[in-house]
């Protein structure tokens, strides 16, 4: 059933507050050129996001007050784009929609966002590279929060696309925040360009969907409208050339769904577009935590869930999503095993976990995907921020081979860090355990082709996740300290701004799993309806098949997941504590394999050779040197000028003889010619 929702004027203020502060910061540094004192600017930003969080909570309460099957709040602000008349009229409204799905998202975005804003006060304090740096940083951060909130609250695809592009822009600005180092600027550009490819797919998807709906006579653009008239386009097909696979006709919904998924691939760093995310770690660590772990990169998952009615009608594409997610999860996990940069490990871990979410979404487990999205936001933000604390303590050293033994020195950080590692590795009763289990169950019960293989890949990835996270833990916190002497004596816990948000996030990393406690555990500890998150989300999503699975099977699956995580942990312990020589020995004896992993399967090199270089060559030789320089400049602009000079300067100028009589002669000849023509 399609519900057009209850009016609420509150929603607009949730994204508006961060925007106002971002505008204030932007005007004071960009236009007035009188930066606000850093502390004041930071407090403004934090206050805006915290207030947004409070408003989100109020809106959430309002939403809960509605009956369960009509929980939709709508805030129509104004008509943004209006065109056409009569039945072909379209209007893209600036209107916000709060339903269970976007409610979960805004709570995560504003809550994790506030924590990271507060953390940033402490983290950016010692950054003296640029006197306006702090305010510029908070300006971008607030602009990001605004865009992200527009993305998740937007009631139509066009508004969602606005937020989608906004977060991409802020991501670019923040990756290249320390732009004086050209590598950072390069990474920012790479993220932006790779995202362009995905955005292109998203845009094509919007236009195709809109075109198809117009053909049925219902050019809807809001989510409710699309869902209402969606049945009309399910049967449509598009003709493709004979040589294309699965031709000669493709189902239109499949094409649309694939286009949207391409967008999701770009934003959420899935194969083949994941290459930008590891390089995005060039940005400041709070940015990595907020944008490249907790919120923006999950936008793709959110989008797939938001369009769940579309994907439910396109089972083939759902299978593609599930397989893409699974392969991404596996590939990224294998790369994470060999990386030595602490942030790179976490980045590949993020790619891997996002793959997990897509695997769930592709298998129809949308609630499991959103559940994992939420828990992942907590523990991955925590891990990044804690890694940032470690990096601060190590004086901006990110190489784990130069850490070690921090257990005795970072007495606070070690606790929160361990909570994060424990949660992501999937040990009960931390949050990661429950959400990962939900995904594995969703994969198990789905009817995607080869879902048992997917389950196997999920299990293998779970084991590898435990391995590389404990490898990171052991290399960083255990063993001998490998830092240079000058740094070693100065390692200490960071200040309160940095530490306190970590405690909060650690708390939620531990308990967030309770929000979506699977029923099987609820039965054991005696809660009637335990999976409150899934039940809450269900009306907003196209519900898949209910779990037709024995409780004993589910418990057995949970046990084996814990078992494989334990095995990964034990292996990490063996490799990095008990027998530290083993990794080196393995790297030597499997050097080809090790090198491949260390160099990330040479994917960057492959893209460079196959796409970037030919593109640059064509752009340089053909587009620049030939078309631009030769054709447009040479023939077009300069050629015209040369031609006119040849005619006028070397020929016609002699007509200007200075002799009055000759002018008179021209005039007479001209007049006679005109009269002769008229009298012909």
């Amino acid at each position, binding site marked *: 059933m399609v519900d057009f929702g209850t009016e609420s004027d509150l929603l607009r203020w949730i994204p508006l507050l961060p925007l106002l502060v971002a505008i204030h910061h932007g005007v004071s540094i960009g236009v007035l050129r009188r930066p606000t004192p850093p502390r004041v600017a930071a407090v403004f930003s934090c206050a805006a996001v915290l207030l947004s969080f409070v408003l989100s909570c109020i809106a959430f309460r309002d939403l809960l007050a509605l009956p369960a099957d009509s929980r939709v709040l709508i805030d129509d602000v104004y008509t943004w784009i209006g065109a056409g008349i009569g039945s072909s009229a379209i209007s893209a409204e600036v209107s916000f929609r709060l339903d269970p799905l976007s409610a979960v998202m805004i709570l995560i975005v504003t809550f994790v966002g506030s924590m990271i804003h507060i953390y940033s006060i402490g983290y950016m304090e010692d950054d003296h590279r640029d006197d306006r740096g702090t305010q510029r940083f908070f300006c971008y951060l607030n602009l990001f929060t605004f865009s992200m909130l527009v993305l998740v609250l937007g009631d139509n695809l066009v508004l969602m696309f606005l937020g989608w592009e906004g977060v991409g822009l802020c991501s670019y600005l923040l990756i290249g925040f320390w732009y004086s180092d050209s590598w950072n600027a390069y990474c920012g550009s790479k993220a932006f360009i790779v995202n362009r490819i995905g955005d292109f797919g998203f845009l094509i998807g919007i236009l195709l969907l809109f075109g198809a709906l117009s053909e049925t006579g219902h050019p809807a653009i809001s989510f409710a409208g699309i869902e209402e008239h969606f049945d009309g386009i399910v049967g449509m097909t598009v003709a493709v050339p004979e040589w294309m696979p699965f031709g000669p006709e493709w189902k239109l919904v499949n094409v649309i769904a694939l286009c949207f998924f391409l967008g999701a691939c770009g934003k959420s760093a899935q194969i083949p577009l994941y290459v930008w995310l590891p390089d995005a770690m060039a940005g400041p660590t709070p940015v990595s935590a907020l944008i490249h772990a907790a919120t923006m990169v999950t936008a793709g998952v959110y989008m797939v869930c938001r369009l769940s009615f579309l994907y439910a009608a396109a089972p083939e594409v759902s299978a593609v999503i599930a397989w893409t997610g699974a392969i991404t999860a596996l590939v990224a996990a294998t790369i994470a095993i060999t990386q030595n940069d602490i942030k790179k490990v976490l980045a590949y871990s993020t790619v891997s976990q996002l793959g997990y979410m897509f695997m769930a979404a592709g298998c129809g487990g949308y609630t499991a995907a959103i559940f994992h999205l939420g828990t992942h936001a907590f523990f991955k933000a925590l891990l990044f921020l804690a890694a940032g604390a470690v990096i601060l303590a190590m004086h901006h050293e990110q190489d784990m081979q130069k850490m070690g033994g921090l257990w005795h020195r970072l007495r606070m950080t070690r606790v929160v860090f361990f909570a994060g590692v424990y949660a992501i590795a999937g040990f009960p009763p931390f949050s990661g355990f429950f959400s990962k289990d939900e995904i594995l169950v969703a994969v198990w019960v789905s009817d995607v082709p080869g879902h048992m293989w997917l389950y196997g890949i999920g299990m293998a990835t779970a084991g590898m996740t435990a391995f590389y996270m404990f490898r990171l833990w052991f290399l960083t916190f255990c063993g001998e300290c490998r830092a240079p002497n000058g740094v070693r004596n100065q390692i200490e816990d960071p200040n309160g701004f940095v530490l306190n948000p970590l405690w909060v996030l650690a708390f939620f990393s531990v308990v967030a799993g309770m929000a979506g406690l699977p029923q099987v555990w609820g039965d054991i500890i005696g809660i009637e309806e335990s999976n409150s998150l899934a039940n809450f989300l269900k009306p907003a999503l196209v519900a898949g098949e209910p779990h037709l699975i024995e409780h004993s099977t589910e418990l057995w699956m949970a046990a084996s997941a814990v078992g494989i995580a334990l095995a990964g942990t034990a292996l990490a312990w063996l490799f990095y504590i008990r027998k530290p020589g083993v990794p080196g020995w393995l790297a030597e004896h499997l050097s080809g394999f090790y090198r491949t992993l260390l160099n990330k399967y040479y994917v960057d090199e492959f893209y460079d050779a196959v796409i970037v270089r030919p593109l640059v060559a064509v752009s340089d030789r053909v587009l620049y040197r030939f078309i631009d320089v030769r054709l447009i400049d040479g023939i077009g602009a300069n050629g015209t000028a040369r031609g006119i000079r040849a005619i006028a300067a070397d020929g016609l100028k002699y007509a200007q003889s*200075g002799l009055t009589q000759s002018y008179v002669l021209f005039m007479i000849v001209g007049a006679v010619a005109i009269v002769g023509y008229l009298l012909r």
Partner: protein
Amino acid sequence: MVPLNHVIALSAILFTIGVIGVATRRNLIVMLMSIELMLNAANLAFVGFNRIWSQVEGTPTIDGQIFVLMVITVAAAEVAVGLGILLSMFRNRDSVNVEEVNLLKW
């Protein structure tokens, strides 16, 4: 009544004399006078045609005469400007020969 052909022939003769005068003479005063001749040739044609026009219409019209007045006004203005240029030219060059005025050329 003088036939129209005669009027047009006179007008054409006067106009041709004017054109030849402008084209061949080097004296600016004579050139101006030739221009006046051409204008008056045109005036003559206007007046002549006006009479034919009145016969065709059946009612007396004065369109041609009005145009003649217009041309005379323009001619007066033109002579005023032309003689002004001529005067300043003579002051500067002590001559009214247009062949000596050829600074504006390639």
